[in-house]
């Protein structure tokens, strides 16, 4: 269950262009979070909280890792905090990637940019279940690349940059065929990428993680809806998602 919790910063490090890795400590969230869930982060001086995915968990140390890109005033302010300081989050929020009951043997992870982080925690959990893991990670350019080594430790990993300055050149969809056989996929990244991925892999089962601007982050304000074909006609990304089965939502 999501709670309002205080987290204490353990470390803050810039790991790529405008991209920050932050490790925070919180006993409750570190025990409860599953891959794909997010923290809804309160940033001083800001009316709305910022949703940031959980990129890793260390249950023993009670820490949570988040990776975020500085894109505006909220993420910039967050990045300027120092170890020892603390902030307030709602978490773990949302519904994450379901891995139980997934009988697939080989899993493809497809991440784009700041959509890569949640796939790492997912990959680690899948590895524990003895799945074979293949990763295709796309970035804009060399300077944006991060987490490569961590994914390589999970399995075969392809890096793609839009400008070819590192790894393959192009989009993640250009590289998927090189990945070889897989029977299930998980993907997180910008909407155009998810559209291309789900179109290309229309015949494969998979789950995707979506983004939308949020008000409450708890399901109460109806800011973050996405149309579905199911009864209600819509789902809320903050509380029904952010992770959905590909057939569940219409992108």
């Amino acid at each position, binding site marked *: *269950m999501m709670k309002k919790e205080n987290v204490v910063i353990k470390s803050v490090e810039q790991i790529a262009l405008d991209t920050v890795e932050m490790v925070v400590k919180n006993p409750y969230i570190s025990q409860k979070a599953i891959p794909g869930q997010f923290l809804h982060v309160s940033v001083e001086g800001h009316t*709305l909280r910022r949703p940031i995915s959980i990129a890793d968990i260390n249950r023993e140390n009670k820490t949570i890792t988040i990776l975020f890109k500085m894109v505006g005033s909220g993420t910039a302010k967050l990045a300027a905090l120092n170890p020892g300081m603390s902030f307030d989050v709602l978490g773990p929020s949302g519904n994450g990637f379901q891995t139980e009951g997934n009988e697939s043997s080989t899993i493809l992870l497809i991440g784009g940019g700041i959509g890569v982080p949640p796939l790492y925690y997912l990959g680690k959990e899948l590895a524990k279940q003895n799945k074979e893991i293949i990763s295709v990670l796309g970035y804009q350019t060399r300077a944006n690349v991060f987490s490569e080594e961590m994914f390589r430790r999970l399995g075969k990993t392809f890096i793609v940059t839009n400008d070819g300055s590192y790894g393959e050149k192009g989009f993640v969809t250009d590289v998927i065929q090189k990945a070889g056989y897989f029977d299930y996929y998980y993907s997180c990244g910008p909407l155009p990428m998810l559209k291309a991925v789900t179109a290309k892999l229309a015949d494969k089962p998979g789950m995707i993680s979506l983004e939308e*601007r949020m*008000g*409450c982050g708890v399901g109460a304000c109806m*800011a*973050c*809806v996405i*149309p579905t074909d199911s009864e209600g*006609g819509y789902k809320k990304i903050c509380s029904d998602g952010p992770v959905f089965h590909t057939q569940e939502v219409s992108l």
Partner: protein
Amino acid sequence: MNNLAISLPGLELKNPIMPASGCFAFGREYSEFYDLSKLGAIIMKAATGTERFGNPTPRVAETASGMLNAIGLQNPGVEKIIEKEVPFLAQYDTSIIANVAGSTLEEYEKVAAAFNQTDQVQALELNISCPNVKEGGIQFGTDPFMAAKVTETVKKASKLPVYVKLSPNVTNITDMAKAVESAGADGLSMINTLTGMQIHLPSRKPLIANKTGGLSGPAIKPVAIRMIYEVKQHVSIPIIGMGGVSNAEDVLEFLLAGASAVAVGTANFNNPFVCPEIIDSLPETLNRYGFDSVKDAIGKGIM
């Protein structure tokens, strides 16, 4: 006696604090954070005649000390609300206020009448001011004649007391208040959001898909306080105040300006516990500024 209690038409509130319409859905989400019985009342999300999906996304954007929203009255329709949501809220020891919306007089009438089916709703908040409905909602909220007309219609259709929710996007808020008071309103609810817009520089498009949205949060509090004070001098029905409330001091400011109860909207998003926290600190805050009770403070601003 409880020094936070306040009696309003149809409402015996144990305290004057209630979540504002649209910021609390039908309570389910926040019921996981705390016991809703703490609340003086709950104002439900707007109900329309039939189910609505609302506007395209993005529906919210942050602004300086505030936010814009254009949800567009997304709701499951009045019948489903009565069937599924009202009974859920009725489990709690708190008053239920239904927010009634529509695009036509007939729709308003239908929604208001539908709530006669249940005994679990104590009052209606008549939303004539939602800036995000295009078909005509906005006209009701900015024209005194239309506002009076919809108030009369709803009063006739409903057995419940009616609090008319006024839009701040008008030249003369007092005229609006007087018009709906004459038309039979039992109370006022003010203010709804100010219409605003924000342009996303990289895309050059409005951040809100609906182009304009309603501005809420601390940014608009001075406008709310001014309008409540102005209206209070000219009407004798009670006012439920709102607009940027985020702590007990804000609540007292609204009481001094003339509000008899106070709704909290946007502040729930940053702090899900804001309502119970305000309720807990209100007695001490009243005390600190020399008041014995909520009743004691209403309209006590010295002008």
